[in-house]
């Protein structure tokens, strides 16, 4: 059985799954229950001077009847007194000494405030700090959260202040609301950070009520931009993770966050360099019980593949992300339809005809045979048909032997290598405007 234990920047955890800082980690009761159910760690909801929340604070988008594929919030940091939070953190750590208990912090931007907070929080026995430089709503208006995370100079300074007094690992949580996340990651490292975590939530307006024209969430007829998260943000998080993991100037542990909902997401984050994983929305949607399959699925997959521990997977995909100019122009694909599996929905035809390269031919249903077939000479191997096909394995992309060695755009543009012959653009669209 695979070993799921991780040591993240010196913080031990029985498995890589931590509850991210947020509503699920607001109290002793929640975190203790999560640990009992199998979570490896928890990043306590950000501790700072208690705030006042508005009542209505979450919004979400559905896809058909699938609810909450994207989620946003305008909730602020903890609304509980600092001493209550710190007391409960200490109690949790005492009761669960082998679990990772990380304390998220956010205070105003001055050295003394940070020193005071770090020293107080350190007394709880917490395993590490996560500096919240990411929240894009509310707190940023007061010069905290994303306001400092968007300024590499501030970020570096604050990390430096924290490191002056911290005796435990310091993680900096980065905001994605920035042009190049690597700049702040580098600044964090320069300030002395032991690790970074990413991504925090994305600036968003999640929808508009068409009866009242009030954006969501509706707070008495008004709304405010919130932080976007949930399954829909995973690709953005994976890209920022990849950029940070491959940046030679960063090279410190990264805790992956952003839409992780199942063990597959988790394995993908690990493969792109994450050393621990943080989950919030999925737990808010389905409860802490999801930890069972997060661990079980990951462990079974690792056993099946022969991976013994997380380190064996971590970062395996990092080097496979490259610039477009390094991709092989002689890697030719063509779609192939397994007619025995085809259920004749013609979705591939509609997609290719209107949305791609008109490389699928329709055959009359009356013939009783196949209703679609690939026009090989027109197919550019774009994958669209295989993506819209509702039958697993029915449309597959197959590599065509081209008889030439790989050649990248960079090489080809420099006069090196040979481009394999490509079919002339074949246009088979049959539509003609009627009079």
């Amino acid at each position, binding site marked *: 059985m695979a070993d799921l234990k991780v040591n993240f920047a010196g913080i031990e955890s029985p498995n890589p799954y931590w509850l991210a800082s947020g509503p699920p980690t607001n109290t002793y009761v929640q975190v203790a229950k999560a640990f009992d159910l199998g979570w490896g760690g928890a990043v306590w909801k950000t501790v700072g001077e208690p705030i006042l929340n508005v009542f209505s604070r979450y919004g979400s988008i559905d896809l*058909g*009847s699938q609810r909450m594929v994207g989620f946003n919030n305008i909730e602020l940091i903890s609304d509980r007194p600092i001493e209550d939070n710190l007391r409960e953190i200490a109690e949790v750590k005492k009761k669960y000494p082998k679990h990772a208990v990380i304390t998220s912090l956010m205070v105003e931007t001055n050295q003394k405030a940070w020193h005071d907070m770090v020293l107080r929080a350190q007394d709880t026995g917490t395993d590490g700090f996560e500096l919240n430089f990411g929240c894009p709503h509310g707190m940023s208006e007061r010069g905290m959260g994303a306001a400092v995370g968007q300024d590499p100079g501030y970020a570096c300074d604050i990390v430096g202040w924290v490191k002056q007094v911290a005796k435990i690992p310091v993680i900096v949580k980065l905001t994605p609301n920035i042009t190049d996340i690597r700049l702040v990651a580098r600044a964090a490292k320069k300030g002395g950070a032991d690790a970074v975590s990413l991504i925090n939530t994305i600036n968003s307006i999640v929808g508009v009520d068409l009866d009242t024209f009030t954006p969501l969430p509706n707070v008495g007829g008004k709304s405010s931009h919130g932080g976007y998260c949930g399954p829909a943000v995973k690709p953005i998080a994976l890209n920022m993770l990849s950029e940070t993991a491959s940046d030679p100037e960063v090279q410190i542990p990264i805790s992956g966050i952003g839409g992780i909902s199942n063990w597959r997401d988790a394995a993908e984050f690990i493969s792109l360099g994450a050393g621990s994983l943080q989950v919030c929305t999925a737990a808010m949607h389905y409860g802490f019980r999801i930890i069972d399959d997060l661990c079980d699925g990951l462990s079974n997959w690792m056993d099946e593949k022969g991976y013994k521990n997380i380190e064996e997977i971590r970062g395996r995909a990092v080097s496979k992300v490259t610039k477009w100019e390094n991709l092989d122009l002689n890697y030719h694909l063509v779609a192939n339809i397994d007619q025995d599996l085809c259920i*004749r*929905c*013609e*979705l591939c*035809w509609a997609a290719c005809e209107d949305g791609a390269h008109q490389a699928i031919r*329709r055959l009359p249903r009356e013939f009783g045979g196949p209703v679609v077939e690939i026009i090989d000479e027109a197919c550019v191997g774009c994958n669209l048909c295989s993506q819209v096909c509702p039958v697993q394995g029915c449309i597959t992309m197959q590599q065509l032997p081209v008889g030439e060695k790989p050649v990248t755009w960079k090489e080809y543009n420099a006069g090196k290598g040979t481009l394999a012959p490509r079919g002339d653009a074949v246009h088979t669209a049959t539509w003609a405007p009627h009079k």
Partner: protein
Amino acid sequence: MPQNNPVAFSAPQGPLLPEPHVMDPLPMTQLEENFADIAPPLNRDAALLESTKCLYCHDAPCMIACPTHIDVPSFIKKINTGNLRGSARVILDANPMGHSCARACPVDVLCEGACVLNDRDEEPIKIALLQRYATDYAIEKSLRLFEPGAATGKKVAIIGAGPAGLSCAQDLRRMGHAVTIFDAHPVPGGLNTYGIAEYKMRPPIALAEAKMVIDLGAEIKSGVTVGRDVAFEDLHKEYDAVLVAVGLSGTRKLGIPGEELPGVIDALAFIEHLKTHPYDETPVGRNVVVVGAGNTAIDAVTQAKRLGANAATIVYRRGEEEMPAYEYEFQLAKKDGCAFRFFTVPKRVIGTDRVTGLECVRSQMGPPGADGKPTLVEVPNSTHVVECDMLMRATGQGRNGDFLKSAGITIQSGSVVSTLPNVFVAGDCLSGGAEIVNAAADGKAAAAAINLALGGQPVMSQRDRMIRA
């Protein structure tokens, strides 16, 4: 002439069933339960989930399978986006009887049977229930989905306010032709009102659907029998075109001795009585036998059982495989506890002052006949009596030949165009008896043909325009 009476529902007059009750009716609360909606509507969440499952096929097989070619993926997509008005319009544009079809269509052999999910070894999309969901909304909100066309000055008489006549009327009104519908019954709807099993659809629903059509400005003359109250020739002269959509004539007789005994009735008369009276006023026997195994026979036998008959039995001369009733209907009857006696040929109705039994012989399949189909051979010495105190005929109806003959109309098989100039035919009197959806398709085809005959421009449906694009 009777006044327009499109909505108010009243029971038809006349002694439909001069039958005494042979047993006490069940309590009304029990009867209400027995005749409750057999396929309850989807709620909003269920409709959203079901519509999400639809793949939105291109040139969808469900659409092709529907005789009226409702653009099923399109109306389902609109349910999914919360555009119920648009969804109902897609349905009722293609099929003005889209609501009754949602309740009474044999969908497992039409749209749902064609759903591609069957090929993925899954349950098909619940198209009928989604169609009902959208059209329920239109009916509940009394939506006005269509507008009459600019008046053309042409006027059309439609004989029969059943599904074919109403479907034709909707399209003709949208094209701008004046329409007058003549119907023998007190209220419109034809078999939708008077002949659908009560647990599938109740008369007020059929009337609401008819009202949507009539509200486009069709004149309706209910309670008028063409050929008795008004001469067909007069209509032919007075109107620019006439549509004959008179349905079928009465049930064929069994042609055996004793058929005239009290307690022997037509299944359709029984169903019509049930649908036009409080449930406890329709007499039912303790032991009911229905002769025939078509869908009407099923409607009769199941409803007899639901009225309280101790036993309700189908007697059919051929075997289960040749039974005309749909598989769904067969299963429904079995679930209701009805019995089936296959290979049983009625010979004589037994009784002195009332039916007490049906004398039958057994039959079996013999060698192929001239048409290649196996002949039916009676088994010697197999005479036996099936006891009953109520016997119903459900052995098919004639094509209303008397009406057509007296009007001088000859039907050209499969064509809505008759041999008489500017006279068109649609519905069961053309097909010999089919589903509501076939009647609606006929009615629409007739409207298109009438429009062309009257010099109108061809009208393209939304779907036609989409296909052209």
